[in-house]
């Protein structure tokens, strides 16, 4: 019938367009999405330049090492928050959970004389259990995650006071626990880790390239692969140089990076991670594709609780104590703000675990820099609030742009 006319209509405008579309797609990604972290890196560089110009101790290796230690706890909590945000949900209880887990660890270890590793394991399991419970209440009864975890925030703070008992503060002296945040590796060990990281990253890139070639797919341009490899290698080497000229590579930073890499792998490369994105993007579509939506939700809240507990343990280890303020103050807001600043959407379905690290670096730098300039609490609160607002604004604007260009 009118087959020929249709073909002309259907294919005419499409034909020969493929390559140009691919290139345009790449540019769009750089501007809007996956490489939005570039935007954040530029922001971070600006922050560093500003503070360095005000106080030349800011970029000293000692202060940068301190910065690394300061962001460990919040960064670890943010790793779990990223998963929750990818679902399009929120977990307001992570601050309180981190405090409670740290208190459980301290009480078991100090008051009951438990083995330090067992105390840590128990604390982590408390976080996991709380996450499972909250995830279950949210997914089973359809209570908004906002409300479930807000109730959790209060309840777990109460539990923290209860666990701490009348003393209100417990000092941690066990070297196994304090060592988590106060261990520094020698130069040689630092370089070994650097080598492992660089070779490992190179191997992952090369393997991915080979797999695509073997499958007969258009592989990424080798030049861009090499650029990525060199960038990562430079960052790793620079970090080790900085750490080694101070006290050495901190175990705490190693733990943070290991969790970021591991959890990024899970979310980007495994079926479970794919399902997290799917539920965050379109829960109904995920359900119809046979994904256990509630299972994914409960697992994600369990991850958030677990990471909060791990963050709380690291914070307690650094401060050598747990008190009634543990996990309180602005910790919760900073843990959520970090990933959002660095490009994980509050609206679900978009983001990466890297943003937990990057966001913690941005927020940590601002807070560290203001401390160095000895600014008053008044100024610090207002600046931090402003940064938080800015992050959400950027996220909302990016979302609007996507919508106007037909992407939801």
């Amino acid at each position, binding site marked *: 019938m009118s087959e020929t006319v249709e073909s002309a209509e*259907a294919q005419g405008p499409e034909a020969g367009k493929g390559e140009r579309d*691919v290139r345009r797609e790449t540019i769009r990604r750089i501007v809007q999405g996956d490489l939005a972290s570039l935007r954040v890196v530029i922001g971070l560089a600006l922050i560093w330049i500003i503070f360095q110009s005000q106080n030349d101790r800011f970029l000293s290796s000692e202060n940068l090492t301190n910065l690394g230690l300061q962001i460990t706890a919040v960064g670890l909590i943010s790793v779990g928050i990223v998963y929750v945000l990818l679902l399009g949900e929120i977990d307001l209880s992570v601050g309180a959970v981190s405090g409670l887990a740290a208190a459980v660890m301290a009480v078991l270890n100090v008051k009951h004389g438990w083995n330090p590793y067992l105390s840590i394991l128990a604390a982590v399991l408390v976080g996991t259990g709380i996450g499972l419970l909250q995830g279950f209440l949210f997914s089973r009864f359809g209570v908004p995650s906002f409300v479930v975890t807000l109730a959790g925030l209060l309840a777990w703070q109460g539990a923290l006071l209860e666990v701490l008992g009348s003393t209100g503060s417990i000092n941690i002296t066990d070297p196994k626990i304090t060592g988590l945040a106060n261990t520094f590796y020698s130069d040689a060990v630092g370089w070994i880790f650097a080598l492992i990281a660089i070779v490992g990253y190179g191997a992952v890139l090369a393997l991915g390239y080979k797999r695509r070639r073997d499958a007969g797919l258009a592989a990424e341009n080798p030049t861009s692969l090499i650029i990525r490899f060199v960038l990562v290698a430079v960052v790793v080497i620079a970090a080790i140089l900085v750490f080694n000229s101070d006290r050495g590579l901190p175990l705490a930073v190693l733990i943070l990076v290991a969790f970021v890499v591991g959890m990024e792998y899970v979310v980007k490369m*495994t079926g479970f991670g794919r399902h997290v994105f799917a539920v965050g*993007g379109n829960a109904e579509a995920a359900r119809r594709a046979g994904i256990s939506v509630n299972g994914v939700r409960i697992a994600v809240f369990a991850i958030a609780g677990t990471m909060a507990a791990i963050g709380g343990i690291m914070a307690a280890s650094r401060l050598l104590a747990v008190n009634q303020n543990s996990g309180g103050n602005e910790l919760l807001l900073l843990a959520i703000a970090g990933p959002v600043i660095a490009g994980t959407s509050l609206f679900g379905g978009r983001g990466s675990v890297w943003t937990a690290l990057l966001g913690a670096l941005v927020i940590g730098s601002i807070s560290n820099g203001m401390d160095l300039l000895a600014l008053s609490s008044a100024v610090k609160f207002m600046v931090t609030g402003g940064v938080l607002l800015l992050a959400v604004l950027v996220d909302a604007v990016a979302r609007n742009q996507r919508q106007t260009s037909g992407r939801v």
Partner: protein
Amino acid sequence: MASGAPLLELEKVSKRFGPVQALDRVDFAVHAGEVIGLVGDNGAGKSTMVKTIAGIHSADEGTIRFNGEEVRIKGPQDATELGIATVYQDLALCDNLDVVANLFLGHEEVAPGLGRASRQLDEARMEHETSELLSNLAVTIPSLRSEVGTLSGGQRQQVAVARSLLGDPKVVLLDEPTAALGVSQTAQVLKLIRRLRERELGVVVISHNLADVFEVADRIFVLRLGRGGGEFDAQQTTEEHVIGAITGLGSGEKDNGGAERAERAEIEAEKREEEEK
């Protein structure tokens, strides 16, 4: 054109929602390698019929035969296992995922070797299979790695249809595949439907758009007030005939009780909406 025993056959299938007789002793058959246009007015029972076949509703009475054997379809899983795939109007795609991820959603393939232990997805293989499937279907999409949200309505429809083929179905039900599409996009989707026919699938296309139905269907099945309102050979009939069968006018039947019918259709539509929630 199709011949021999039908792939899927409905015999005197009825479905009630409370007082509303949504389907009333409907006989219907799809053969391999044919496209059937399922048409009817709002509330005529088109969606109920599709959902009955797809296992979302179960039939109250009547028999369903698949490949000549009587089957009971109690849930969507049963329908999928038999080889009946359904593409609903809302497509159920994740806009934030790329084409490959959407195609394999819920059925991701895991990499061999070390990847199996670490549960790594075999992206290369999935992308390879996607590109093979899409090129077999002559579906052109600029990049398989572009997010589905960036695609046009026609491309999204084609992705949804392609996804339904991954389970190797025998029968594909398409709910309003050309609704809200532009002229050239509609043409693309209709071409894809013809390609499904070439693959010897039985295809049921529900559509309001008679022009599209005439364009692509071999036979046209009319539902009217939950009953079979006639079957037409698309080559030998005219739109007027089909419209007559849809509305019940001009077919010699007297149109009494129009108000009652409208009311009934309305109740039924409401009922269905409720059910969907």
